[in-house]
């Protein structure tokens, strides 16, 4: 278990290193950040000063080396645009994005799994078929468009929900969250729904497929024959067995929910890291781009690790760290 942990840690370290190098070279290849930020009225003296101030006069490898030295101590550089620590900037916006992503996953899981199970248990009924039809619409419609329609309908026409931004925040264990207040919830509802739609459809279809498969298994027949109630057969035995691929997918998808949040955050002006990242890319604010990607990679590593742990808990046959070929 311990060796497995070390192994995973070194793997992640290598990924972080390679990824940061790619971003450095990538931004270098795109263009000159000074060109994006300097006021056109500025003279050559000013341009030269700005270039030196941002550390861009040095060769790219030396800039990378300086970055690495700082990264080891936790300093990922200062944002070119904001002048503040890039890592602090990202971490100050992270709670908003994580809250949005969590809410979206909660909606997707809370509605997706039960709906998928219904569709799987009653595949030929009206309700089963309509659930599947709605799921197709769910992953076909582009997030961008759905978000705008939601705003037009709920905010402009009906005036029930606010059209953008984050509501009141309260501190929970020192982190500002907005779902604990009515105002915060009203701001959170549409973006979370918008972001959840795709995952919801995915989970419905996945759960249904899993249910269709397990319902034919021998142990289900045996459990029914044994006289167990339907609730216990489905709610305990079947649920536990279909959860394994679902948990794996949820883990993978959670990462992509954080990534897809960019579109939703732009539409709803949700002050998260996605919006910050898009703006930073447009302005070639390299420290923020690098800091964001490193935080995200670390997050992905943790999520995948957590998924593996849950996986082994759900399925006692799985032992972490064993080779794929089978046990001893």
């Amino acid at each position, binding site marked *: 278990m311990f060796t497995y942990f070390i192994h995973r840690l070194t793997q992640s370290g290598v990924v972080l290193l390679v990824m940061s190098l790619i971003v450095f070279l990538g931004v270098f290849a*795109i*263009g*000159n950040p000074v*060109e*994006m*930020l*300097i*006021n*056109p*009225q*500025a*003279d*050559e*003296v*000013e*341009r030269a*000063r*700005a270039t030196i*101030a*941002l550390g861009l006069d040095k060769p790219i490898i030396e800039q990378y080396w300086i970055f690495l030295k700082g990264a080891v101590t936790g300093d990922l550089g*200062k944002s070119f*645009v*904001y*002048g*503040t620590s890039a890592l602090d*900037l990202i971490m*100050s916006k992270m709670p908003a994005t994580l809250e949005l992503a969590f809410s979206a996953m909660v909606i997707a899981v809370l509605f997706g799994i039960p709906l998928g199970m219904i569709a799987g248990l009653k595949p030929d009924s009206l309700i089963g078929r309509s659930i599947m039809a709605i799921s197709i619409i769910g992953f076909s419609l582009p997030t961008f468009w759905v978000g705008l329609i939601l*705003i*037009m309908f709920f*905010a*402009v026409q009906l*005036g029930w929900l*606010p*059209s*953008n*931004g984050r*509501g*009141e*925040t*309260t*501190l*929970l*264990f020192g982190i*500002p969250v907005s779902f*604990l*207040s009515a*105002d915060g919830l009203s701001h959170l509802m549409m973006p979370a729904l918008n972001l959840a739609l795709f995952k919801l459809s995915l989970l419905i279809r996945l759960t249904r497929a899993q249910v269709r498969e397990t319902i034919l298994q021998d142990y289900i027949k045996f459990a029914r024959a044994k006289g167990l109630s339907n609730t216990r057969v489905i*709610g305990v035995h079947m649920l*536990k067995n279909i959860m394994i691929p679902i948990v794996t997918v949820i883990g993978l998808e959670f990462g992509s929910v954080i990534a897809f949040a960019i579109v939703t955050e*732009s*539409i*709803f*002006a949700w*002050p998260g890291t996605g*919006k*910050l990242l898009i703006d930073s*890319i*447009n*302005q*070639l604010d390299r420290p923020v781009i690098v800091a964001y990607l490193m935080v995200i990679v670390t997050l992905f590593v943790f999520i995948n690790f957590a998924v593996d742990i849950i996986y082994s808990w759900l399925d006692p046959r799985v032992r972490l760290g064993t080779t794929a070929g089978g046990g001893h």
Partner: protein
Amino acid sequence: MIRTMMLFGMTLLISLSVSAQTGATSTTKNATSTTKARDISIGLQAAITSMDPHYHNVGPNNAMLRHVFETLVKTDDNQKFTPGLALSWRAINDLTWEFKLRQNVRWHDGSPFTAEDIAFTLKRVPNVPNSPSSFATFTRAIVDIKIINPHTIQFSTATPHVLLPSDLSTVMIVSKKIGEKATTEDYNAGRAAIGTGAYKFQEYSPNQRVVLKANYGYWGGEEPWDVVTFKMLTNPAARVAALLSGDVQMIETVPTADIAKLSKDPKYNIVDKISNRVIYVHLNQSTEKSPPFVFAKDGKQLDKNPFRDVRVRRALSMAINRDAIVSRVMEGKAQSAAQLLPTIFYGTSKKLTPMKFDAEGAKKLLAEAGYPNGFAMTIHGPNNRYINDANIAQALAQMVSRIGIDVKVETMPSAVYFTRATKLEFGYMLLGWGTESGEQGSAMRSLLATFDAAKGMGVTNRGRYTNPAFDKLLAEALVTMDDKKREVAIIRAAEMVMDDVGLIPLHYEVSTWAAAKGLKYTARTDQYTLAMGLKPIK
């Protein structure tokens, strides 16, 4: 399995509610949840990157910080100088300017404003760490500061510097007492954001919003608003939706597609104003032979650079139907241009008119210049910088191809485009220029004077146009201290360079603001959105 899940859920719920009760020590209220009639929300198009007035010289920051800080010389909605923290100013000789300061002005913390604050500000401006674009360009001319008395200050320059009032209209004055030990972080946090302006700092959330509250003791009189919340809504559809749903009461930069609909809606009123931004084309004249992306139709390099011939430049200008671009691409929100600034500005010629569209005449001129069958070139432009820039580039391509030139179009994000354009990697470049000084002399110096980095001439002259006669005229004009004589000289220089087609001006952008019924915004040529300009209609 279900039992463990339910147990987990219950513990989570209980711990959440407990911690929320005890941990809710800080609640940030959104302005809309405690809205009074005198609170207002405004939707902005670009993000504000700092509350330090000397950190980053960029339009959105400058507009925002003018609420909290003030300059010696202010500009009104037509960019004409008005008294700010200075009541009057004059050049007492060629190398010295004297500014008389406004009395009885107080900083937001109550301390009095004096000339010491100005001296401190001018020392701070070139020394802000990590600044991506500082204001040093505008304070560099001042070599000596003399404080005559707490309300009179003199600046000495090394050479005659006529643009000193204009330079000082960009530098916001900070308090010496607060600013001496303050860093950019202190300004962003609000600790050091103590100014003399009409509004006080309340909250700044990067990339999200700025909240300001009224300065009740402001020397300029009472403002109509108590709390102003600026929301950064960069997505155009979201910005319009915020206005329509009532989340904000005014927005800037109304998307072209929504202008028609909002104009007809009685619940909103749209104001527009011509801006100081001209959209133009620079032709790369730096190479002897073919400039980049310009070839003969068979793909071979050309012996001469066609853009160095004034007839080719004039033909390319005549090929453009500016009226069509204004009415079809810009949907009326633009004005055809004949020079670098609209005629309401200082230093513009009333004699110059936009080049008349004449495709046949253009073809003849091209033939006369030695290109009867035209040549081939690629038009380059940005796609996310100016209003409808990609569409303008495409319209230009269609128009230019009609006079016998084989045209390709390539647009790209500004992050890529401007770097390459500055390195002169393109031939026909679509560009824009906003003249912050409000007068044509400095615009011509940046865009059309022969490139000379050491002298600060032609810094943004990407076409590398060079005309010694024009340079001489312009250089003389720029050191003429008398306003009227200088304007005559600048106009002569402008007429010369536009006749020689130093660059091809297309149109001036028109800025739009949309406000809810009952509110009126005084539109500005510098494109700033200021709460001071928004007033309820009685």
